[in-house]
């Protein structure tokens, strides 16, 4: 009898050890949610460290945090030197490289136009009665060049008073990359920062339809990142026309007069920051110009239009959508 009890106890211990240590957390950062799940040794400690890092990055680069480096830069006058943290300097340097690589399509300096169109975190309400006039857009366009900003050592200056920065299109990915360094030796981890993911281990990815409650495609990710940008994230309708938050080089939301516009761009690759930035740049550029850039990074993409889709790079997506046509 004692042998039976002992055997059963051993079975219990083995079963419970198979589940492993797991810890999760869910909260808010960069004006959106984050969700962290870590399995393996020291899961709790790792989750706590990741939450600290997310908060630290937010404190440095959020446009909403009044004392962040970005807020100080945005309030500064032309040529006023602003000393920034290593985090901000790193994101700035990465952004400059991606600004060049995407021919200006990824541009952290469009914040004045973002505010004008009502898509900033402080003024987005999801409805509008009118859109900005051409004169208003023309007045702000010259301010929206990333070339107006320079970084020397850890000092950022701008050459125009009202030029403003917003790292929203890369910060989530950068945060996920930083968090990944903590879980790189974990059994498994899923890092989700506002739907920009970096995953340790293997997982199934489902790409949701930007227009209806359904899925367009699935893929298997292994130690990779994924980010999606699209015209469904922040938008409003005026006179039955959709206006969204990804501002193009002409000062208007990208692709609003293009039937072949990309409405959702999902990028898969190693770095979450690069996936994040490329997904935004792809909406601005459209398929033909974005394709060679995505391929030059060795990344894969699923680009969705109203009626079709494009596959770019290594063919990792299994498209399940029966309603859209393959365009390439």
């Amino acid at each position, binding site marked *: 009898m004692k042998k039976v*009890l002992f055997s059963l106890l051993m079975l219990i211990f083995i*079963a419970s050890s198979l589940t492993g240590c797991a810890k999760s*957390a869910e909260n808010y950062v960069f004006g959106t949610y984050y969700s962290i799940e870590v399995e393996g040794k020291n899961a709790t400690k790792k989750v706590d460290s990741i939450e600290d890092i997310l908060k630290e990055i937010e404190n440095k680069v959020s446009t909403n945090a009044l004392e962040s480096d970005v807020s100080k830069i945005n309030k500064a006058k032309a040529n006023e030197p602003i000393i920034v943290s290593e985090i901000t300097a790193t994101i700035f340097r990465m952004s400059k490289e991606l600004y060049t690589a995407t021919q200006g399509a990824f541009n952290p300096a469009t914040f004045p136009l973002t505010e004008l169109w009502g898509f900033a975190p402080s003024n987005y309400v*999801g409805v509008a009665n009118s859109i900005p006039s051409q004169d208003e857009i023309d007045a702000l366009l010259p301010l929206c060049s990333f070339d107006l900003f320079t970084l020397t050592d850890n000092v950022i200056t701008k050459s125009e008073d009202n030029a403003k920065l917003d790292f929203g299109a890369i910060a989530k990915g950068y945060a996920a990359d930083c968090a990944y360094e903590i879980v790189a030796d974990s059994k498994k981890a899923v890092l989700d920062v506002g739907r920009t993911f970096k995953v340790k281990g293997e*997982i199934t990815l489902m790409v949701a*339809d930007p227009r209806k*409650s359904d899925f367009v495609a699935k893929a298997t990710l292994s130690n990779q990142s994924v980010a*999606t940008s699209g015209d469904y994230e922040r938008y409003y309708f005026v006179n039955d026309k959709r206006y969204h938050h990804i501002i193009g080089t002409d000062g208007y939301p990208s692709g609003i007069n293009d039937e072949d516009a990309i409405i*959702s761009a999902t990028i898969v690759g190693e770095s979450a920051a690069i996936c994040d930035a490329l997904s935004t740049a792809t909406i601005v550029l459209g398929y033909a110009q974005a394709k060679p850039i995505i391929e030059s990074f060795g990344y894969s993409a699923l680009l969705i239009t109203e009626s079709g889709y494009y596959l770019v790079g290594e063919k990792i997506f299994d498209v399940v959508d029966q309603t859209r046509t393959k365009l390439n």
Partner: protein
Amino acid sequence: MTSSIKQEQNLIEIYRNKKAFGVVDAIIIAILVVAIVVSCVFLFSSNKGAYVVVYENGKESARYSLENNLTTEILDGKMLLKIENSSCHVLKSDCKNQICVRSKAISNVGERIVCAPNKVSIVIRGKSNVIITGGEL
């Protein structure tokens, strides 16, 4: 020496008279078996038993089975949640932008509705090795 032999004889008698299988033994075994079965079911089940988890300001505040049909207040009455036909959506919210109210109903593990102004996340959780990207938040 005699007393130790007598002690041993007493112990042998006790052992011989002891029941092979008592009520307490049965209860312990029953608990252990149930524990093993439950943990095995938990380990090997997939998307069945999906449930809705509500997070308010980073802390889990409520949990509901997706099989329920109910309408309930969350966030001290500032938001109204409805679960029906194995899906969940936000009926009402006091937030300025109403993005959460306009969000699609969620039903798959990994889907979520987010009310950023109220710092509320409503997430479908369950045993599933799936992440969801894209689509309306």
